[in-house]
């Protein structure tokens, strides 16, 4: 390191080529030369998997954006209508028209909604909009300044007049200017995060706005995260009597997510699928942690990237015809990737011809010939899966207590994770279904059939393999329909089964002699009833027909099509992303755990030779000082005696070779190292120096 010429103590920054800023600049220079908008290099961008990823993501993203736009549209329409209508009525008194938008707790998500509102109002040229963030409004002065700046800035952008405003306008100036320049355009002030504003600033702001309401057409829009009580709790009477509130409700976040899941992620249009676990993981983050749709979509995008980045073989994860075209481009390595897929092995094992096995395993061209069929099977499987899922959702979605789950996404997860037929929940469902009355059952199953057919017609038919899918499914649905017709025609008459022959006691109940005898008979009858139930032989014609239908549904749809992932056709890994561990590691931050790993086992991150540990708790002198100090502090209680700590540190660092040396005299170098490490530990927040006992430090973590 170069010496400094400064005499003062301190930390100096040396500018050399390795700084971050320098890198950035270099990157900027390079990028236009490469001629791509991506951060990645040319060699990555040109790979087929990347092209496929780009295509899939843009398609999905577009779809999601459209969907959200549509779901916002109604509220947005009402809100714009409200704002525009305020312009038409004349302001008589000092009452500020206010719209409260109940957004739900994840406010960063809803900023996009406010942006949409702003754009809409701008495009209609009916209002000037200023979005006031709470972080800009710590004081009234800051609030008014950013408000005026927002409105005036807008004006400049709109009318291109070169006002030399420096944002230092005061209220009076604003009044004059604004009043002069506009007559009936609304001045919309949006506070997207109402809860975060300081109450006093907000009250004053509202009072000011309402005082100017007569001269200037202000409209206030509040984004409220919790409920209207928050508004009334923040604003005292003398403020709230100055506004006129209109409440607008937006769609709840879970509903929004369900919509996105049903319409986009579970859409048969896309070849990419999430495995049950990953799917559950992402929805879990949403429902349990943050309610952020945006976060969910980003998580999903990460999965998509991770999936395609695994190699060019994954470029096959696309429409059937495109995949066929891609097969030719595959190299030997890509074919090896395919051969290494876990589901490829069962496929090889089920071939009983030795030569073919060798050909599949060694001959790329042979496998390429086989691939189209495999891909087709796979894609078809997913279509059938999805259609059957539709049937199952309708079938079990509204049963009491919803053992399998109510929503499509829950059923999807359940079906993908394990063979649903074997689960007790499924058995419970079947039992409940068999308890239904005739009318209910018939109505339900025909509803399921209708819905599945509808789904086939609407969503599947337009796809490439749609006809094939329909061809497979339609006859099965017909079979079920016939069976339902049987149920309709079935009578309630009891059918005598052979083992019921010896149940003649029914009429003989009256002929008992004693109470004892009656009791015995009753007991016997109840036992018989039970055994009959256990044998599961329905007594009436109707019940039999019903059982038959349920069995048909189970064998045709559930067992055949709703197979769990490990039972799916070969090479399904190309279409299903299931690497949950990577995703979890990368999208959920666990700072505490990471810090602990770093300090407890520095080798994990540094990959150096010196710090390799056999055992996590091992203490080696070659570890970094901070790490040694950390490990020693883990052994202590709440209060740590600094001197003892130092002694322990010394004995570890010096490796116990100068055991007999001067115990009292501590090498100043070691002491300095120790002091520094302790200071660093304090900086990391693990300990705190206590004032009461100056020679002790307090542990803060457990």
């Amino acid at each position: 390191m170069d010496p400094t010429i400064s005499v003062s103590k301190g930390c100096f920054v040396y500018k050399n080529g390795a700084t971050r800023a320098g890198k950035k600049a270099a990157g900027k220079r390079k990028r236009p030369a490469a001629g791509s908008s991506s951060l990645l290099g040319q060699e990555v961008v040109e790979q087929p998997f990347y092209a496929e990823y780009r295509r899939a993501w843009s398609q999905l993203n577009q779809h999601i954006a459209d969907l959200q736009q549509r779901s916002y549209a109604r509220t947005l329409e009402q809100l714009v209508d409200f704002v525009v209508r305020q312009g038409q009525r004349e302001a008589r008194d000092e009452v500020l028209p206010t719209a409260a938008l109940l957004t739900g707790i994840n406010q960063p998500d809803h900023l996009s909604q406010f942006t949409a509102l702003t754009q809409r109002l701008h495009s209609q040229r009916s209002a000037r909009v200023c979005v006031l963030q709470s972080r800009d409004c710590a004081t009234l002065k800051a609030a008014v300044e950013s408000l005026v700046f927002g409105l005036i800035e807008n004006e400049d952008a709109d009318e291109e007049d070169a006002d030399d405003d420096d944002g230092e306008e005061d209220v009076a100036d604003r009044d004059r200017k604004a009043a002069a320049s506009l007559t009936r355009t609304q001045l919309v002030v949006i506070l997207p995060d109402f809860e975060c504003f300081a109450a006093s600033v907000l009250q004053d702001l509202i009072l000011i706005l309402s005082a100017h309401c007569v001269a200037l057409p202000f409209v206030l829009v509040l984004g409220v995260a919790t409920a209207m009580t928050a508004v009334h709790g923040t604003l005292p009477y003398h403020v709230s009597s100055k506004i006129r509130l209109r409440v607008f409700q937006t769609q709840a976040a879970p509903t929004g997510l369900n919509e996105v899941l049903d319409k986009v992620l579970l859409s048969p249009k896309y070849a990419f699928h999430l495995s049950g676990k990953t799917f559950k993981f992402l929805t879990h983050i949403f429902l349990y942690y943050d309610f952020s749709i945006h976060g969910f979509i980003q998580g999903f995008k990460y999965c998509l990237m991770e999936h395609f980045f695994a190699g060019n073989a994954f470029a096959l994860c696309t429409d059937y015809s495109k995949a066929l075209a891609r097969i030719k481009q595959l190299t030997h390595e890509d074919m090896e990737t395919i051969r290494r897929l876990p589901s490829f092995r069962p496929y090889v094992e089920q071939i009983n011809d030795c030569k073919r096995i060798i050909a599949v395993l060694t001959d790329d061209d042979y496998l390429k010939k086989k691939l189209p069929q495999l891909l087709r099977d796979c894609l078809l499987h997913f279509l059938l899966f999805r259609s059957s899922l539709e049937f199952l959702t309708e079938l079990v979605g509204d049963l009491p207590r919803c053992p399998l789950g109510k929503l499509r996404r829950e059923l999807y997860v359940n079906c993908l994770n394990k063979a649903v037929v074997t689960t007790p929940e499924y058995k419970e469902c079947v039992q409940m279904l068999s308890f239904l009355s005739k009318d209910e059952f018939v109505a339900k199953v025909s509803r399921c059939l209708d819905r599945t057919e509808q789904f086939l017609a609407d969503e599947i038919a337009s796809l490439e393999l749609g006809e094939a899918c329909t061809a497979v499914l339609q006859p099965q649905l017909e079979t079920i329909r016939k069976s339902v017709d049987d149920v309709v025609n079935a009578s309630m008459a009891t059918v005598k089964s052979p083992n019921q022959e010896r149940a003649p006691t029914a009429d003989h109940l009256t002929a008992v002699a004693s109470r004892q005898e009656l009791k015995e008979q009753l007991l016997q009858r109840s036992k018989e009833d039970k055994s009959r139930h256990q044998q599961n032989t329905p007594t009436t014609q109707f019940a039999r027909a019903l059982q038959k239908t349920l069995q048909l549904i189970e064998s045709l749809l559930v067992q055949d099509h709703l197979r769990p992932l490990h039972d799916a056709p070969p090479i399904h890994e190309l279409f299903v992303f299931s690497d949950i561990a990577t995703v979890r590691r990368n999208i959920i931050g666990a700072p505490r755990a990471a810090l602990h790993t770093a300090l407890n086992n520095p080798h994990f991150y540094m990959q150096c030779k010196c710090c390799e540990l056999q055992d996590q708790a091992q203490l080696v002198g070659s570890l970094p000082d901070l790490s040694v100090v950390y490990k020693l502090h883990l052994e202590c209680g709440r209060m740590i005696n600094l001197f003892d700590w130092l002694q322990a540190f010394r004995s570890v660092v010096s490796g116990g070779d100068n055991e007999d040396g001067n115990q009292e005299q501590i090498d100043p170098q070691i002491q300095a190292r120790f002091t520094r490490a302790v200071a660093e530990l304090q900086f990391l927040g693990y300990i705190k120096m206590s004032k009461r006992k100056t020679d002790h430090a307090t542990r803060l973590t457990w």
Partner: protein
Amino acid sequence: MESICSSMEKLFPCREAAIGILGELIGDSKEAYPSAIYLFGHSGTGKTALTRAFLKECGRKQNVRTAHLNAIECYTTKIMLEILLDSLAPGQGDALKADNMLDFVEQLHQWHGAPGAESQGFLIAVDNAERLRDMDANVLPVLLRLQQLTSLNLCVILLSQLPFEKFYNKTGLSEVISLHLAQYNKAETQRILGSDFAQVRSQLLEQFAQDTKRLEICQEAVTEEFYNNYLNLFLSVFYKACRDVPELQLTARKCLSIYLEPVLDGTVEATDISRLWRHIAGPLRSALTQIYMRIEKPPEETEDFAAIEDQSVRKLAQSLELPYYAKFLLIAAFLASHNAANQDKRLFVKHHGKQRKRMQMVNARAKTTEKMSTTLGPKSFSIDRLLAIFYAILEEKVGLTCNLLSQISTLVHLKLLSFVSGEQNIMDGSARLQCTIGLEFVMQIGKVVGFNVRQYLCDFM
């Protein structure tokens, strides 16, 4: 002066006395004004409107220069001074600048020498004058002595809701003339509300312009007497709760359509007051709970509106959508706030050992309701304790991830938790939080996630 007063009296019924006094004090610009007038009274008693109208009349008839400003806007003294200069000397553009009180007084003093200024009067009205106390220390004293300092015929009118005693400070203030605008009594309120009868009637007629049958009934039924009867009934419910005239006016107009409904349908005669009363009593009482809230009904979707109106805690807790863990964090925060820290072990650890009972303890435990911590209010707790309780009450195991920790700050943003101290040093664990929600609310949340909150509260053991 008389003309000003008489024209004002028409606009402000029941304020004749106050107008008279004002007129005597500052009605004539030829005479010397008092240096300051302090006008006070509750909100909705007409202070601002009266002053504004008076200033306007004076400006029009006697060519007095006037300025009216709202002290809330003036977060710096400079803004106030410039607004004053702007409105006192119109047409001078941006040439007038005053950075501090001295400049301002200088500026005004120059006008004194100007030709034609001898007989010119100046009136300055400052709304929300209580805010002047928080401004620079010299603002209020200078405003009160402005006449003396500038040698102009100038009067400052201060408007506030507080009595002038609240303005006294250590250095003392010069005396002002106080003028109190008392609240209207019931008869006066009714007279004021009744004074806009013509407007209400024309509005109603306009509303039913398409519906000829209703229009006829309306024309016939809505008379001055009918309206006064209505106001009488209305005030019998509302006068106890609210005396703010604009608020009453607004609510009265809202409820009139409900009152009128049976008459328009032809079910009740317009003169049958007792039956009309029976009809209106319920809606009036429910409107009483909505007063000051100013929630406007959208023209359509009245059902939706009913849901918003129902502000019971149960509804609120159920409608508040929070992620699952956030709900548990909130419950944990509530428990941490309302249990003593030394009870935690007993509450949340499975094998907490046997507790010895002593007479002293039993007596201490026999709490009266005043001692219950749920009624005493929340205590503060550290984040460590919050997380420990969170993990104790949550059955499943979750990692301590960023997502989880960020939930705490989300809850703080939503004002369900609040920082008591140490907001700056969250890192060293000394930050303390407090839970701001009530028992009933948290019980509802507990019900949603299937957790019995009462079971874990020391108060209910």
